[in-house]
């Protein structure tokens, strides 16, 4: 009986020593666990997704059209188009004439001045 109690006490001492010196998580295992965590994390925490998640909508739009250089080209093209539309060079044909319209007195029955006159006559 005394022997059994002594043996159990020695066993308790061994348990205590084992508890006091728990095995540490190996570094490579820690790294592998965290890599798994990143791989299966809801929302997919891949590098690309993390970058997209942290960017505001306007920046994502800019990236969608090709970034700042593409946006610069797009702006220049828009400005050139607007300028050509407002002040076309002499060699550029009139798009309205190409579509079959000719500018004459009957083409537009009422310009804004005539319409104002008609309305004012109705009121009288």
């Amino acid at each position, binding site marked *: 009986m005394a022997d059994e109690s002594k*043996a159990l006490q020695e*066993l308790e001492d061994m*348990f205590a020593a084992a508890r006091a010196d728990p095995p540490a998580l190996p570094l490579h295992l820690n790294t592998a666990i965290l890599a798994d*965590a990143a791989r299966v994390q809801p929302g997919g*925490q891949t590098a690309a997704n993390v970058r997209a998640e942290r960017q505001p909508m306007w920046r994502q739009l800019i990236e969608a059209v090709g970034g700042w250089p593409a946006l610069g080209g797009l702006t220049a093209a828009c400005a050139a188009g607007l300028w050509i539309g407002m002040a076309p060079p002499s060699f550029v044909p009139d798009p309205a004439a190409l579509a079959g319209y000719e500018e004459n007195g009957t083409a537009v029955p009422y310009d804004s001045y005539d319409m104002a006159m008609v309305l004012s006559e109705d009121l009288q």
Partner: protein
Amino acid sequence: MSPAAAAEAVSDDALLVLYANGDGRAAAELTARLGPRVFGIAMRVMGGRAEAEDVTQDAMLRLWKMAPDWRPGEAQVSTWLYRVAMNLCIDRKRRARGGYVDLDAVPEPPDPGRSAAEQMQEGARQDALQAALMQLPERQRQAVVLRHLEELSNPEIAGIMDISVEAVESLTARGKRALAAALAGRREELGYSDG
């Protein structure tokens, strides 16, 4: 409150929810808290480092995958994880049954605060404890490891092993007696005097 203290104040439950919501730091904190404990248990139950590493990584992977479905407050994350780890250990033992010997098992690193003789003796005692644990039937070994090395309560062990509290008490009592008997023949070798 320092950032470390603030992180400690967050429960495992909350960390798992944070992880499910995309917080990458939550995974690191959960791994730091739970990884070593699962690894320690797996080492004791499997008896080998390589197998214990596989079990730990697999159990943690299942935790990450389960995170979106976790319902906070219903159970403890650690209990769920231990249960998964124990089942993985049983599965691996079943598959390996037939005389598998893990040659990758390595002893604990020596503690520089003790003399070489003391370190060797303590190392020998821990090796003897592990050898005796490996002689126990699977369920007894699990119950003893969870109770006496992880210091979990009997109800918690019952939840992990899916048995009654009485069954846990019976397993741990029989396990301890069997360990004491297995180690009795090595008392002198392990430096225990008769006095």
